[in-house]
């Protein structure tokens, strides 16, 4: 009994520590945008606050007004949505097809191939690859084209996506597909009717992962898109500095919050609708 109680206490203590660890850094994001003159200090925005040093600051919507008036801020969020949705759709579609085939059919050298691609993808996402990628885009006439950027980003994400999805599919029982097959379903019907719905949580998770990756990517969009009207929020975030390189915390904190909202909403949507899982083991 005592052991049980101690166990409970230990459990909640641990959970509390974990919660604190993951919440603490987020406090700034939910307070600074609402304070009149944000610094790095977390202060509670209160109407009429900020006079004493009691950890409060004057509450204001001005920062949001400033972001709304910013000529590129909101359009850049739309660009981010386009880029990440396009990349995620392409990554999920291509990775799912490839991962399924690799999971179910023994193609020669598939494991070695996957490892090699995974390693190469680390080069491509690194900074040293900017010249080849840029030149490639120039040669293919994909400069300043969202499609080109989507293709390049997709190329970098695909190996890891295939790797993860193959793992997911490996752990999905095959009897569903066999069952459908005995009933006469064609391979494509099986994929559509059975496989896609079964691995949907995995697809959704990969989609979120791809979106999160593209959502935060700065260097590639900046280099490949010169038209500011096509540039995503990651690039615009980096412009919220002054000539001397000082962060404009008023705009940065507020835009940072707005910039985070779509991915959070997407996560909530996906986790409610599909469940958010990296691994199979179908729940019955």
């Amino acid at each position: 009994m005592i052991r049980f109680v101690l166990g409970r206490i230990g459990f909640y203590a641990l959970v509390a520590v974990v919660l604190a660890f993951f919440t603490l850094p987020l406090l700034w994001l939910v307070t600074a945008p609402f304070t009149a003159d944000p610094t790095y200090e977390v202060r509670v925005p209160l109407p009429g606050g900020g006079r004493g040093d009691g950890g409060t600051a004057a509450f204001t919507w001005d920062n949001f007004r400033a972001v709304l008036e910013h000529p590129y801020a909101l359009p850049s969020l739309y660009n981010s949505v386009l880029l990440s949705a396009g990349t995620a759709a392409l990554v999920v579609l291509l990775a799912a097809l490839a991962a399924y085939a690799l999971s179910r059919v023994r193609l020669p050298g598939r494991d070695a191939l996957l490892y090699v691609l995974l390693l190469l993808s680390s080069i491509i996402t690194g900074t040293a690859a900017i010249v080849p990628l840029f030149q490639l885009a120039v040669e293919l006439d994909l400069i300043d084209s969202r499609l080109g950027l989507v293709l390049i980003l997709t190329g970098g994400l695909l190996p890891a996506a295939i790797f993860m999805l193959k793992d997911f599919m490996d752990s999905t029982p095959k009897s569903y597909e066999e069952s459908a097959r005995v009933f006469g379903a064609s391979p494509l019907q099986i994929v559509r009717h059975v496989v896609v719905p079964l691995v949907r949580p995995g697809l959704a998770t990969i989609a979120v992962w791809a979106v999160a990756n593209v959502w935060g990517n700065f260097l590639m969009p900046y280099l490949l898109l010169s038209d500011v009207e096509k540039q995503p929020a990651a690039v615009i975030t980096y412009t919220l500095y002054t000539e001397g390189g000082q962060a404009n915390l008023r705009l940065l904190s507020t835009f940072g919050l707005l910039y985070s909202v779509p991915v959070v909403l997407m996560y909530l949507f996906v986790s409610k609708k599909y469940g958010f899982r990296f691994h199979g083991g179908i729940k019955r």
Partner: protein
Amino acid sequence: MAAIELRGLTKVYPGGVTALDALDLVVPDGEFFALLGPSGCGKTTLLRTIAGLEAATGGAVVIGGRDVTGVQPGERDVAMVFQDYALFPHMDVADNIAYPLRIKKVPKGARRGKAAEVGARLGLDGLMDRRPGQLSGGQQQRVALARVMATQAQAFLFDEPLSNLDARLRLEARTFLKKLQRELGVTTVFVTHDQAEALAMADRMAVMEAGHIRQIGTPAEVFQRPANTFVAAFIGSTPMNLLDATVRGDTLEVAGCKVPVPASAEGRLQDGERLVYGVRPEYMAYSDGPADAALAGKVAIVENLGASYLVTLDVGDVAVQAVVPEGREPAVGSDGHAVPRRDRALVYRDGELV
């Protein structure tokens, strides 16, 4: 019409393991046929090869007179119930049942109607819009059966259809399945590792071992006259007594006792030959007092089987088991005498029935 015929069917896996070794088998139309054997014997591979999920390395599969060896599973006109039922977790019961019809491009209304009809027949009405995850094991099994029925296939294949049910449900399902098959009259092959299940349900059965069929026959034949010591040991809820024996004229010497040569082997044995004498515990007459042609020894263990008891006698240094009706069970340590029924006792030479 839809007999299943296997001719020299062979399956060798890429690693060189032979799962099926040139099997010949005929399952006539309408028969309820069991494939029985220990795990790894090839029974599931055989079923999957009939379904087309595994490609035969050699030989032929003929269903309803049509050679389907190279035909895709979906074109063989068979339906299969998987061990885990493989109900699609993202579809409700009606959609699951109607899935085969969806593949056949039956209009939605018609297939929902058919699903409802089949479901009702299996007592699934009221559950049609549930997901498989919300059903009990028995209900899931019936959905899987309903889905198979909806196909109107020429033959059904069941892979361990009862193994995912708990013991009590299994008996019910056994009866239910047998009745259903009888009503439908569709040729059905099912795989099981449970000999009682095979005996109880099948019209005929095949006992398999290591890629070979060791015996084909009706449950009664297989139970009463196992064709070899493997089948003899495998079939029966209490294993058959298999005892070393030596022919002494017209009697056999078994564990120091003398018993008559079984009726089936009369005139086929040579004096002095060493054989295996087999008799099921159920086919022993037990008495406390001395009896003629009995295996006599001391009672070592008495096990309660419900309406009867299983008595293990130490006869010399071999153990002999006999089934004793309730009320007549002996005390441990007392003397016991088991008299084999001559018309049920068997003799095996080199493992094969004489």
